[in-house]
């Protein structure tokens, strides 16, 4: 075999390697007598080191390991999203885990391994590597969902997520196999180059393969009609894990979908009408079912389904502008959704809470600052200016109008009007509902405060300077569009 074109360059993988090393260090230190307390610190160190290496890689375009690993602007921006999500969810996790007496070092190692998988997913043009990345990401997530071992709901979430996840992986793998059958390659670059001859020779295999791949990722990103696992898993999993779920795997699924659909199968026009239906269903079902929830975690689960719908709109339209706006939206969503979940985690840290709407009453008078932040995140989720949520939706829907998808834009705007109701319900419960019992004090610490500052600055900063961020997202796409 000829090794000259292999480019086996381990510096390409420095972000991933730093995560892996820290993850193993946490596990191995965790079984010693004194090493149990290093989990949080080492985890944070690993994530920050990986973030530093990723930022350093910004702007490069390099492939290595026989073309299996590609580091470009796209992978860098996605990796930054994953790492930010990891850092924020780690910051809010420790207090919660300690309060629930499940603060084990394995938690931090699992989060690190899961992010490692997401980064692998975003950094390859090869379907096999994308699949391996998906599995590295998913398996720790199954364990994390059931991390609250003595809570039956958490166990249910873990098992449910595992079964649905394994099912989705099966679909995805079968789809990859059929695509391989059509073109004798799993490399998206070759697929994109030879698309027309493949479509002529084996159209059935190709269409069935792409459909199965779409179903597999549909489960992962929580698109309707593959969403039914999300509310139960989100509600049952420990709250900081739910926070991580709602951003990390979703962003990773979209990273893979963007590479596969907007690069590999860009010439397949029929995919647009399928995505159109998926986007409309996802936005409508997510937003409407969110109206009827009594549990905030469940409500946010449906809301995260709806947000996946908005990003599917960007995918449907396709092209540099639309997909860049989808990426901008994902970045904003990382901040404001994690911010909302950070506050929810702080509230859930108290004993005897079940994240119900009624538990919010009286929060504004007891913790005015926290309640204001929660309101900001809710306004951002609903899409009020000047937050990141507003500009994200503006870019996505105006991109849809420009691309000729006027009805898609109209349906999107209408469903997002519906969403205002349930987001404002949270604000109303905090500020305007009379409390029949005093609000139970919550405990703050520097880590929680830091997480709130990062998310609030991100949600507002992305909204105040949208054009510079959208340019950044466009740059990220220049590498393959």
């Amino acid at each position: 075999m000829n090794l000259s074109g292999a480019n086996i360059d381990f510096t390409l993988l420095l972000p991933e390697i730093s995560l892996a090393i820290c993850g193993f260090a946490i596990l191995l230190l965790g079984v010693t007598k004194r090493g149990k307390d290093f989990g949080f610190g080492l985890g944070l160190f690993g994530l920050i080191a990986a973030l530093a290496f990723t930022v350093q890689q910004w702007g490069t375009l390099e492939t290595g390991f026989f073309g299996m690993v590609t580091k470009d602007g796209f992978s860098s921006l996605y990796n930054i999203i994953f790492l930010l999500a990891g850092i924020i969810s780690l910051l809010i996790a420790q207090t919660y885990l300690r309060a629930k007496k499940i603060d084990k070092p394995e938690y931090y190692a699992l989060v690190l391994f899961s992010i490692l998988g997401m980064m692998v997913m975003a950094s390859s043009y090869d379907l096999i590597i994308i699949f391996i990345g998906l599995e590295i990401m998913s398996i720790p997530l199954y364990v994390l969902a059931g991390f609250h071992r003595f809570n039956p709901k958490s166990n249910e979430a873990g098992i449910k997520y595992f079964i649905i996840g394994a099912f989705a992986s099966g679909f995805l793998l079968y789809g990859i196999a059929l695509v391989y059958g059509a073109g004798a390659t799993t490399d998206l670059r070759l697929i994109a180059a030879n698309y027309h001859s493949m479509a002529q020779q084996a159209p059935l295999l190709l269409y069935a393969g792409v459909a199965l791949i779409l179903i597999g990722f549909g489960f992962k990103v929580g698109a309707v009609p593959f969403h039914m696992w999300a509310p139960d898993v989100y509600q049952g999993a420990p709250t900081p894990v739910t926070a991580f779920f709602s951003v990390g795997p979703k962003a990773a699924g979209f990273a893979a979908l963007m590479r596969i659909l907007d690069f590999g199968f860009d010439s397949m026009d029929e995919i647009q009408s399928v995505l159109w239906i998926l986007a409309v269903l996802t936005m409508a079902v997510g937003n409407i079912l969110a109206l009827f929830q009594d549990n905030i975690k469940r409500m946010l689960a449906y809301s995260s389904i709806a947000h996946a719908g908005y990003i599917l709109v960007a995918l449907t339209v396709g092209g540099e502008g639309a997909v860049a706006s989808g990426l901008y939206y994902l970045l904003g969503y990382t901040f404001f959704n994690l911010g909302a979940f950070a506050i929810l985690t702080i509230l859930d840290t108290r004993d005897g809470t079940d994240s119900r709407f009624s538990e919010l009453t009286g929060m504004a008078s007891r913790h005015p600052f926290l309640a204001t932040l929660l309101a900001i995140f809710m306004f951002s989720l609903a899409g009020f200016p000047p937050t990141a949520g507003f500009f994200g939706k503006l870019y996505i829907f105006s991109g849809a109008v420009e691309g000729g998808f006027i009805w898609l834009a109209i349906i999107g705007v209408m469903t997002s009007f519906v969403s205002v109701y349930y987001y404002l319900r949270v604000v109303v419960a905090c500020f305007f509902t009379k409390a029949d019992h005093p609000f139970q004090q919550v405990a703050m610490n520097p880590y929680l405060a830091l997480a709130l500052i990062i998310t609030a600055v991100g949600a507002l900063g992305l909204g105040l300077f949208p054009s510079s961020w959208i340019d950044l997202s466009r740059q990220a796409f220049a590498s393959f569009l």
Partner: protein
Amino acid sequence: MDYFFVALFVGMAFALVGGGLAISYLVAPNRPNKVKSQPYECGEHTVGPSWVHFNVGYYLFALLFLVFDVEAAFLYPWALVFREFGLIALFEVGIFIVILLFALVYAWKKGVLEWV
């Protein structure tokens, strides 16, 4: 591509199983009694219901077995191409085995190898 032999193979597989079942259905005498209808447990009398909890220890041993199984499965193809790849292959498989070793050390320290 010739799928004829595949189809033939599949057909024979079905015919063999179906034929066997059909012949025994037609030929075998059917005289059930109480002892015959019991589930077969190596000739022993069955004790209790079959919905029992297995010792979770078996499961952990199965997981640990997987560590070595995966290692062996990967080392064979690696050995086949080792000559062509040279030192870099040794290095890479070293990383792989060290990672598996971490798993073993972790499990060992957690007390998985002790039967309780």
